[in-house]
């Protein structure tokens, strides 16, 4: 096992700073493990005999069995000695939750942690982080209680975040929206394990299909670039750079230096390594969902199928705006579709099924569209407010998507509670669904860009 494997797949875990006080992080983390983790759990607290029906130990050194992972949840000034004991115990990996290190100027204190970890060959995540969340192994060091923050279910999206709180909020939202997650890692101060090593690790992780990255800076730019390039040809990486205000405006001798804020250079570096660049946090996961759920398109010709004319027009505008192509249906397809549609429907691109379209109409038309060789991907707009359209349209979309799984199909549906129920249903069966044409087509563009980067769509840009 690789050192990082012990972070995600430990057989046993010690919680240093486990607590009986419900509001304490050490309590929440212990309870996460007690509830879901299948390996052994050892609470460590010198002032308790027993916690959540588990025997409590004063130190990891008192635990009679082997420990793979330790989670340290005690104040910064006690972390060093606890870590030393972890080293002596032969623990393989440690997550250090508390802050109070380099982020507040205590660089020496943090350096000592790195030294101890190196000396004993332990791998370290943090300090000053949320740590690790894995839907497969149920390692969960997120210290927000489950009644306040839901945990998402299993999926193929893994998220590396430099900001812990941001990651926690995203996990909560992912749970509500039925977005499947594989792993979440809050890397904190990066005293040992950094984003570079994590990217490489997730690049080889069989449960990760897409890597999402939130970064504000890096300590090793070239290392990051090389890791992204190496992993980016295996699986898609979606990234967002936090801290966009330009620091490049200081007075300098050359124009170049004055234009080169770190965001601009990050952006270029991401483009160069095939990373899909998200402009905001919505896009980060809009892109990730499309890439995680769909196969890559073989071209950029998009067909719109809608039951609302206006949304068809907006979608077409977005396709042009994003430099994608409007698909042209073959004459054969047009004839076949015309035969099954009422005379007032419009067959072209968009295909307007008009307001009285029911599920059956969607099904018959979509099957012909999916078969058309001039179509590389399909953008389905459906407004569920219209009375003719029933919930069984979800079944239609599931069956069409799985029958033609090589051709990406995404859905746009805008609306309130009723619509959102259906959005969650579709999300659960991995049909990426977006609340606006703008967001949907941007995700489509990301899919096309990545397909082009991988050479599935030939690059004819010269």
């Amino acid at each position, binding site marked *: 096992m690789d050192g990082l494997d012990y972070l995600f797949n430990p057989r046993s875990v010690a919680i240093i700073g486990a607590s009986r006080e419900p509001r304490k992080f050490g309590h929440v983390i212990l309870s996460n493990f007690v509830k879901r983790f299948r390996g052994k759990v050892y609470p460590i607290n010198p002032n308790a005999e027993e916690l959540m029906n588990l025997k409590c130990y004063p130190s990891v050194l008192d635990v009679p069995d082997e420990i793979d992972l330790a989670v340290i949840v005690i104040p910064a000034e006690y972390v060093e000695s606890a870590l030393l004991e972890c080293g002596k115990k032969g623990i393989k990996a440690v997550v250090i939750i508390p802050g109070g290190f380099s982020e507040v100027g205590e660089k020496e204190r943090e350096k000592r942690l790195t030294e101890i970890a190196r000396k004993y060959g332990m791998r370290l995540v943090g300090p000053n982080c949320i740590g690790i969340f894995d839907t497969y192994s149920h390692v969960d060091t997120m210290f927000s209680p489950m009644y306040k923050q839901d945990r998402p279910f299993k999926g193929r999206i893994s998220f590396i975040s430099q900001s812990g709180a941001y990651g926690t909020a995203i996990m909560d939202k992912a749970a509500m929206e039925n977005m499947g997650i594989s792993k979440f890692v809050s890397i904190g101060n990066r005293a040992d394990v950094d984003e570079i090593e994590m990217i490489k690790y997730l690049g080889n992780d069989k449960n990760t299909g897409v890597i999402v990255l939130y970064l504000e*800076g*890096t300590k090793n*730019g*070239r290392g990051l*670039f090389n890791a992204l390039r190496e992993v980016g040809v295996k699986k898609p990486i979606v990234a967002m750079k936090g801290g966009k205000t330009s620091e490049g405006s200081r007075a*300098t*001798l*050359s*124009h*170049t*230096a004055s*234009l*080169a804020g*770190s965001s*601009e*250079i990050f*952006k*270029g*570096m991401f*483009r*160069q390594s095939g990373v899909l660049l998200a402009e905001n946090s919505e896009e980060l996961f809009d892109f990730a969902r499309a890439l995680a759920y769909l196969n890559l398109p073989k071209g950029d010709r998009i067909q719109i199928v809608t039951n609302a004319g206006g949304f068809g027009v907006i979608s077409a505008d977005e396709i042009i705006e994003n430099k994608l192509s409007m698909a042209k249906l073959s004459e054969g397809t047009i004839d076949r579709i015309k035969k099954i549609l009422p005379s007032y429907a419009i067959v072209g691109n968009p295909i307007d099924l008009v307001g009285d379209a029911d599920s059956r109409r969607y099904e018959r038309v979509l099957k012909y569209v999916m078969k058309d060789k001039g179509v590389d991907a399909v953008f389905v707009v459906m407004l569920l407010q219209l009375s003719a359209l029933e919930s069984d349209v979800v079944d239609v979309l599931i069956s069409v998507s799985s029958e033609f799984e090589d051709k990406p199909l995404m859905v746009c549906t805008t609306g309130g509670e009723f619509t959102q129920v259906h959005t969650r249903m579709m999300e659960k069966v991995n049909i990426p669904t977006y609340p606006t044409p703008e967001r949907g087509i941007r995700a489509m563009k990301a899919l096309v860009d990545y397909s082009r980067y991988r050479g599935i769509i030939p*690059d004819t*840009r*010269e």
Partner: protein
Amino acid sequence: MKISDRLAYKILKSYGIETARYAFVKDRTHAKRISKKLSFPLVLKIDSPEIIHKSESGCVQVAFSENDLDEKFRLLVKNAKKLTKKIYGVILQERIDGKEMMIGSKVDEQFGPVICFGLGGIFIEALHDVSFRLIPLEKRDAISMIKDSKAYDVLGSRGGSNITAIVDTLLKVSRFIEREEIKELDINPLMVNEKGAFAVDVRIIR
């Protein structure tokens, strides 16, 4: 420290980067003699390590004929002397028309040497339209960074051959930065026309 323009142009040429036709001269008689080998209008530029922003201080002049040359030369040197005594000489350069682009490079704290491309000339400050890549550059990087910039739209649908010339120049600049110890570089403007891409003004900080 900014290296002399004379040396800067020489270095560019040695890496195969095209420049506007030029000559370096020491004085007015030298200028008159050399100007017969070039074609008017000629752009006169002071070569001084102290003068960074030349056009704002009257240290760039245009001579439209041989008569004009004498007068403009005198004016140029007069303006320059107001600013510094350290004057290497004057660059006489053929004027080139085309679309103004820019290529730059600098050493970034996090990523090391980087290169950028975008709209040049007067647009540079207003539009901040530049795309960056890390050096060394591959051909596909050069193409994509042009596409990422608004310059691509400015070049228009007939930009094909121009783009090849810019790609070629970007790759040469990348190689140049890889081999030489350069802190910052500006080629601005890089004039792009149907004949190719030409460095018209260059600034190299070592």
